[in-house]
């Protein structure tokens, strides 16, 4: 069976900084992979390569078994990859529908937008999927006063609307309340139940352990190790994370 996503010997440098060195990892069909690592391990760079925002300096990317060269953000989306970024990638002064359709506005052949359809779809998404605890929000509401969880909801719904089946979540619990965090974890479990795959990055080992089938540990730009969550206890995993951060080794 082919992997949903595979990276082989992917490297990326920014000037003198070697962000990623010879990364080889994969995500199975219908698997949630947790990506763990300390600050500076290279997690965000890895995500931006998978979503087509950065180009790797070397190595190959395979989506459902087929190699893809010169991946762009648009191409990645067509391949079913959607990302909920750490910085959420929203435009605070703009209306909700503009954020949902950012970069993917529904247009005719000449680029003229179907604003009616986009606001209609946004309203529908608000009814069906989005969570807003106040009732005064419409598709034309500006998002700058939304709470952290509401903004996260916008970013997530945006990813889901476009029928992704590999959803990348980069530090999605950042800025969320306890209850919102719990709901997000449930949501990631729902992704798995729906037959899709996900990559879940978080600093918090507890969150990742709770939802991931498998954990990949990045350290200083390389894959330090992989563990199936059913084969390791949380405390052992935590211990190994500390050791690898301190010394670069698990033992």
């Amino acid at each position: 069976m082919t992997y949903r996503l595979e990276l082989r010997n992917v490297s990326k440098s920014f000037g003198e900084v070697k962000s990623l060195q010879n990364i080889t990892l994969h995500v199975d069909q219908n698997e949630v992979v947790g990506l763990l690592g300390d600050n500076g391990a290279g997690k965000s760079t890895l995500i931006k390569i998978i979503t087509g925002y950065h180009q790797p300096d070397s190595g190959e990317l395979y989506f459902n078994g087929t190699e893809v060269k010169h991946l762009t953000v648009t191409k990645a989306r067509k391949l079913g990859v959607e990302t909920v970024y750490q910085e959420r990638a929203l435009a605070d002064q703009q209306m909700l529908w503009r954020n949902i359709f950012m970069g993917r506005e529904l247009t005719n052949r000449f680029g003229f937008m179907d604003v009616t359809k986009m606001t209609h779809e946004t309203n529908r998404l608000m009814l069906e999927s989005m969570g807003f605890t106040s009732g005064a929000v419409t598709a034309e509401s500006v998002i700058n006063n939304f709470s952290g969880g509401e903004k996260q909801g916008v970013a997530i719904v945006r990813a889901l609307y476009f029928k992704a089946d590999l959803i990348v979540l980069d530090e999605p619990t950042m800025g969320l309340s306890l209850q919102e965090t719990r709901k997000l974890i449930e949501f990631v479990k729902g992704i798995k139940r729906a037959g899709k795959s996900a990559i879940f990055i978080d600093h918090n080992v507890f969150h990742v352990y709770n939802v991931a089938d498998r954990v990949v540990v990045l350290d200083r730009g390389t894959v330090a190790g992989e563990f199936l969550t059913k084969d390791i206890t949380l405390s052992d995993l935590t211990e190994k994370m500390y050791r690898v951060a301190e010394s670069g080794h698990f033992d």
Partner: protein
Amino acid sequence: MTTQIEPPLNVSLTTPTLARQFARFVRRYRLQFGIVGVLVLMWVFLIIAGPRTFLNKEIYISFADSVPYYGLMALPLTLLIIAREIDLSFGSIMAVGVMCFLSVFNATGSPILGLVACLLAGLGAGLLNGIIVVRFGIPSLIATIGMQFFWRGAVLVLTQVSSNLPLAPAVAVDPVLRELLVGRIFGVLPAQFIWMIIIAIGTWILLNRHRLGAHVYLIGDNPNSAALMGINVGQRRIMIFGIVGVAAAFAGIVTSYSVGSFFTSLGSGYLLPTLSAVFLGGTSVLGGTGTILGTFVGCFIIGAIEPGTAAIGLLGQWTQLIYGFVIVVSVGMHTLLRRGSR
């Protein structure tokens, strides 16, 4: 089989009352309401304080004649400023455009070819501005200050004059283009005003109904987010610079036809009124917000200050004071209105 993914949070929506919907409408368009309010207040004040001027149709014909000289540029410039860029070289591009018109007209005898050359020159100058800003990463404020001098210098050198000289007879006597650009419709309404309205409608459609306009708002609001979502930020910026260049060249040829001659200093006085009209109209220099209606109204507020000052009996020295007052009050109002949302 795909099962529905449960969303993370709960939904609760109430149906808003009519009063609430109206309040929401006013709140959403509060920038536009604000600037139109300023215009109306100012207009009422001028009619009361200077009835001899402002109850007479002559002053309004004068506005329709002269405001488009910079209004034609202020409207596309709004898009550029919303995109968090600026162009200070558009005055010089006016002169570049007219110079190219003259060269081609004198060589070919065709006003249409001349007009095409003029607009293409403006496009080229604008695109060059964009390329310098995007490819070399120079902030547009600095890059276009430099280009302002560069284009002005190019015009002076290429026309080999250093003071005002009338245009080659070409422009003054070509009747067809003259009528089209600056003729009097129904014997009274200056055609350039109609052009300004056409440009206003065109830029409104581009900004609010075209994908490029949507991207302009997003790039100005958060260029990182826009790039992460796959928007080609650099290409969009270059295109808007190009549009501003074309508009400047067009404004240049319209102004020259209206005035009847070409001065190599064409455009050098338009920097401040054009920018003031845009900022006064509610566009934020920080990017991400702004309206075409605001700029359109702002152009006429700016245009009315000088004649208004004279009409209400104040000496010319008051003009600067009033310019400053109106600008600060308007921009302050917009800043306050922009706070708060939903």
